[in-house]
């Protein structure tokens, strides 16, 4: 029994270390290198959002800030969404979908809205104080005054 526990612990440490090596890249300068920027409403509570908060929002753990309901927006399936999920959440699209399916049926959580265009994402954030979305980095110069890019 003790031998089994010892072998299990040893094996777990080896596998854990090997898995951690795959995540050696530091979390910095997120977004720009991956081709997206994160945008928020200039009048909302998310101007000071950092990487941890953005992660919590997109995992459904953070729902309110200063009484304002946070409303995250995902892009439709594609390279931009994959890049965002990988950079911010260290998840593939499949893992993210599975995570949310479980969350919906465990807690009756609300799925983040999915939008197909940069125009739609910017419009949503502009019209919602708690809105947060990600768009291609080359679109950042076209935002207007109501929507700003936050640095993570």
């Amino acid at each position, binding site marked *: 029994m003790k031998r*089994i526990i010892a072998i*299990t612990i040893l*094996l*777990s440490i080896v*596998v*854990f270390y090997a*898995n*951690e090596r*795959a*995540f050696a890249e530091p979390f910095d300068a997120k977004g720009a290198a991956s081709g997206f920027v994160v945008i928020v409403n200039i009048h909302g509570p998310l101007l000071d959002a950092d990487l*941890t*908060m953005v992660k*919590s929002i997109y995992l459904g*753990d*953070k*729902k*309110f800030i200063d*009484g304002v*309901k946070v409303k995250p927006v995902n892009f439709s399936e594609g390279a931009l969404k994959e890049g965002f999920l990988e950079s911010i959440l*260290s998840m593939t699209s*499949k893992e993210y*979908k*599975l995570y949310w*399916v*479980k969350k*919906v*049926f*465990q*807690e*009756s*959580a*609300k799925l983040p809205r999915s939008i197909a265009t940069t125009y739609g994402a910017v419009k949503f954030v502009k019209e919602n104080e708690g809105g947060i979305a990600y768009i291609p980095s080359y679109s950042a110069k076209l935002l207007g005054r109501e929507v700003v890019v936050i640095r993570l």
Partner: protein
Amino acid sequence: MRGYSFVAWIIGLWVFLIILVGAGLPVKSAEADSIEDRVERLEEKIRELEAAESNEEDLYDIKSQFGKNLRLFGDINYYTDSRERRNRTFSVGSLGMHSTASYGDRLSFAFEMIVVAHDHSTSVNLERIWVGYTVNDLLTLRAGRFHSALGYWNKAYHHGKYFFDTVERPFFLKFEDINGIMPIHIVGLELSGAFDSGAGTLKYWLQLGNGPTLHKDVHWWMYSNTQTYVLVPNNQTDDNDSKQVTARVAYEPSFLPGLGLGVFGTNFLIEYTDRSVPVEVIDLHQSIYGADLQYKRGALEILSEYFRFKNGEATANAYYGQLSYNLGKFTPYARYEELDTKANDPYLSLLSGGNERLQYIGGVRFDIDDLHSSVKAQYRYDDWKGGNIYEVFEIQWAFNF
């Protein structure tokens, strides 16, 4: 004559210049007409879509949200000879219907019902039903019937077997009606919330509800020489004034994404009749507490939980450790689980599933589809104290739609 030639040259030059400039003037071509038409049609389409969205929002409060998130979960199984099923056999698992809904930012609902096909009958069980109100991230209040906050697995996984890698839950976490030894469900109130600090996220669950009761197990002869019982949640009436309290606190540190650590505990009162003194009702105060660890990052998942059972006369331990590693469509896994009891434990000795037992499980899950269907094949070594050892081969096709 020479003068006329010069004038003719000038006039000719002017005519030529007029023709040249005229040719360069911007005129509306057929192509430009086409682009304008397209822009106008697109703008009209956007207006229509915005109007439709606005109508949808107007109807939101009136329309039923039931069915918006509706899903059926089921599984079909094949087992070789096992303690639970003699002979090699196909088996229909329970069909679970889950639905969740929300109105506005704060009101939420959940419903889970299962249909169970027995050998000669079918039963329908209401497994979860609750209504919830979210005040803020720190506080959500729910009322209804839900899974008790005893550890990680019981809160994370419900009746849909598609969601977990193995064929079954750890045996000591089975539902009450199939020889579970813990109150898996509770009817009452739940407070829950999460707090984000720089160091990580702290989550809590606090439940107050009816404790479980005991019913005679009609299949007691499969597990014991004397009558044994199964735990039954009190849905309609608590059989005593004492209430069950359950709490769990979990921490997800920022320094190690993917890691979760939890501690939990519960206390409840069971009233039972001593077999040796049939008319005497005995009050048994039972506690269950423990700790859990989860680590999920990339391809690797580690789950481990420890439970300690304690009453006035005896203590017992149950624990499991599960490891899985995703390789694309395939996920190999292994689990060890054990229940370590004492013969004189007044709580566990009453229960059909309360016998000392250990299992080794090893298998592989194959995802036919990313979200809807998977096949699991596993080997299970089942050693029950005082009983036969079974080496079981199990295949399960789990699905949802």
